[in-house]
């Protein structure tokens, strides 16, 4: 193989965030000119962070970046663009009411008579580039009216027009249908033939196999190596991508699940971009068990949790708690049924950061009789409750009056779980409960979940953290492409390799095996 022409080289890149989390550790990453190079890894593996540094959105704590043989300091996207690096983000940076042509020339608009937009020229430029790169777009259409696939092409054109020779695509197929994906790949190959270099961030094995030349796998902030796509099998990729360096040891008693609490049947949901995010999902969760929902993010987990707490509505199917349908039910009634939610977005839903710890911790129970004496609050009872919760959940703070935004991430989450776990719930839905928090808080929250489960609560644990979802759950389902790909009744026998294969869509159980997760009758 030719040793030639490394166009981008990232050496010994380390990125540590102010809160202590190391997103990248000593990562080496290099891309040859004119190749399509995949950057693979699960969520949290560090691939997005690495590319953010290549595009100047973040700066490395240590290490150096070399572009075209020159050492560079990419302090902002403008600098990166000047070096020929362009990035197409997962969430498009487009202005909906402007036309395609206007979006493409924004910031470098051709003028006529010095004062006005030369719209004809803008259209011309758009068409010119569109034809040159075989990226079919409708230059005159408003961005809000065009399909997602075309929006992506517009983003690519935006980068190319600004002189990008290296394109970074962040999970480009996450929002595309199968057909749009095929189109995209045709275009990428065309670009490659014209000498452009493409870095393709993804975790979808089949796609990587289709169009990439080489791939780099990241896991836990470290690079697991670079491989020729043709000579590595999907199983080997899966093994490298999905695996744990250290296996978490969680002490828990045997589960003795009894009645079904949550019963989800045939849930269907297609999102606004016509992507089917939930496809006939059915499962149930029983008292006394922790059912994990595993899978790479973006396979329907978000939508599933939203449906269960009325933050979104499915197109079809049902979800019942103790026989009562909760789809579309107002949140206060869902809570009355004994359901608690530890939300993924804790700052938006989990807490009111400008309020005190006490105010946050009673937000689901302040109307109860024990906290009210007639029209007034029983302050003694409320203080006692918050103090008790702060102590029980070891929330590190100055007092219950302290504003929640002053706490560390781990302690903020402890406030959230202090509230959600202490309402004597029948069903706990925990969505990424330990993301981004310190070890101590993580251990604490996990232990609490186990205790609650063994005391009789039903727990639905949605987690992208492999350790968490494998060791904490008693049983788990794997979501892939909006469908349940597997059901494992006993997670203690699971190994990483098998998990990887199901999570990445290499394998799928039979309907019969999957059907065993529905425990009714």
């Amino acid at each position, binding site marked *: 193989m030719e040793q030639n022409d490394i166009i981008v080289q990232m050496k010994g890149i380390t990125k540590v965030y102010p809160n202590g989390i190391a997103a990248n550790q000593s990562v080496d990453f290099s891309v040859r000119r004119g190749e399509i190079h995949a950057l693979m890894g699960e969520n949290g593996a560090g691939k997005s962070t690495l590319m953010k540094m290549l595009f100047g959105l973040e700066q490395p704590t240590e290490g150096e970046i070399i572009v075209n043989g020159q050492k560079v300091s990419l302090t902002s*996207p*403008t600098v990166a663009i000047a070096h020929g690096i362009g990035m197409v983000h997962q969430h*498009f*940076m*487009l*202005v*909906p*009411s*402007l036309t395609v042509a*206007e*979006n493409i020339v*924004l*910031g*470098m*608009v051709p*003028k006529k008579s010095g*004062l*006005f*937009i030369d*719209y004809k020229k803008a259209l011309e430029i758009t068409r010119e580039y569109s034809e040159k790169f075989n990226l079919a777009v409708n230059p005159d259409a408003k961005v809000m009216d065009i399909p997602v696939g075309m929006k992506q092409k517009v983003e690519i054109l*935006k980068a190319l027009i*600004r002189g990008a020779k290296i394109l970074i695509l962040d999970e480009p197929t996450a929002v595309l249908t199968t057909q749009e994906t095929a189109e995209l790949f045709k275009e990428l190959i065309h670009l490659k033939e014209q000498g452009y270099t493409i870095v393709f961030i993804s975790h979808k094995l089949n796609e990587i196999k289709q169009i990439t030349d080489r791939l780099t796998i990241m896991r836990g902030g470290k690079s697991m190596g670079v491989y020729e796509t043709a000579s590595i099998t999907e199983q080997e990729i899966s093994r490298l991508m999905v695996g744990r360096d250290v296996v978490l040891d969680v002490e828990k008693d045997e589960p003795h699940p009894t009645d079904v609490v949550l019963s989800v049947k045939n849930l*269907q949901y*297609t999102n*606004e971009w016509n992507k089917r995010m939930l496809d006939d999902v059915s499962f149930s969760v029983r008292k006394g068990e922790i059912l994990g929902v595993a899978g790479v993010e973006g396979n329907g987990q978000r939508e599933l949790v939203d449906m269960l707490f009325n933050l979104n509505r499915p*197109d*079809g199917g049902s979800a019942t708690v103790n026989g009562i349908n909760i789809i579309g039910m107002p949140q206060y009634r869902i809570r009355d049924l004994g359901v608690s939610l530890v939300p993924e977005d804790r700052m938006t839903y989990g807490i009111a950061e400008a309020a005190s710890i006490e105010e946050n911790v009673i937000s689901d129970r302040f109307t109860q009789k024990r906290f009210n004496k007639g029209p007034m609050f029983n302050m003694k009872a409320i203080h006692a409750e918050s103090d008790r919760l702060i102590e029980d959940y070891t929330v590190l703070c100055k007092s219950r009056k302290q504003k929640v935004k002053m706490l560390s991430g781990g302690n903020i989450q402890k406030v959230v779980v202090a509230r959600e776990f202490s309402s004597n719930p029948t069903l706990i839905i925990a969505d990424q409960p330990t993301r981004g928090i310190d070890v101590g808080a993580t251990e604490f929250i996990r232990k609490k979940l186990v205790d609650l489960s063994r005391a009789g609560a039903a727990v639905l644990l949605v987690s992208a953290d492999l350790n968490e979802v494998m060791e904490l759950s008693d049983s788990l389902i794997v979501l892939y492409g909006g469908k349940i790909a597997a059901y494992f009744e006993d997670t203690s026998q699971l190994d990483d390799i098998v998990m990887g294969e199901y999570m990445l869509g290499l394998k799928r159980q039979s309907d019969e095996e999957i059907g065993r997760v529905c425990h009714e009758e």
Partner: protein
Amino acid sequence: MWSQLFDTIFKAEFLFSVIRITAPILFAALGALIAEKAGVINIGLEGIMMISALFGVLFSYWTQSWLVGVIGALVVGILLGLMMGFFSLKLKTDIILAGIAVNMMGSGGTIFLLYMFTGMRGNTGALVSPNILIPTVNIPLIKDIPVVGEILSGHSVLTYVAFIAVYLIWLLLYRTPVGLNIRAVGENPNAASSVGVSVLKMKYIAISISGALAGLGGAFMSMYYSQGWNSGMVAGRGFIALAAEAMGRCEPVGTMLSSLLFGLAQALRTKVSGLQGVSSYLVSLIPYVVTILGLVVYAASTLKKVKKIKVQKAQSEVQK
């Protein structure tokens, strides 16, 4: 009474007055429009109109030139806009509070400023003379067309400017790079800054233009409509303009149409109050009630549109 009413409405004279009355509302509404396009809410329009109106009269009096007066009012409007921008963008005062502050300055501060500059109290009666008011224009050919000529010709210079401004603002927003940037910044600031457009700069520009337009509206009031400045003259037009802009769906032409609607309401009120047996107070209510009704209709229709999209999506799912 009703026959009397109909008699007066369908006269060219009435439609002339509608246009005349709409102009200041239109200026302010366009000001609200361009600010909102950049993602900035300017509720200080009322105050800006008051203050600019005062300075318009003062400048024209000092220089004995109406043109300087109008330009002065415009400049004052720009300065007030920049001030609001500074407080809300740099010092992070809530833009709505900044707007309320400007309105406060406009209501009482103007009386104070009048005293400070001229020693007069309450109104500028003695300062104004016909030669420093905004002149009216009789458009040569048009004025001779029956009916239409009566309606369209003979307005003040600024009246025509107001309606031309609709076109100019449209031109600015949809045909110039600055307008493009303003719209981008208002809709998706991340997208704008990712291509190197300065979000702050665009917001400052937009709020300055907004102030300028309100300034012209103020000049119109004091130097033509009321022929002098007095402390009660703007009477909520700045607020009605907000409603007009909202109903105009944030588009120049729509804004013009809804401003005309409110102008019609106010013209009606003037006409009707002259009739026998009608309470001038009840009639004064008309514009404000119309505004609320207009907002209600607009909000209800937007809601219906959103519901319709949801229903459509659900239906197409079922058909699959």
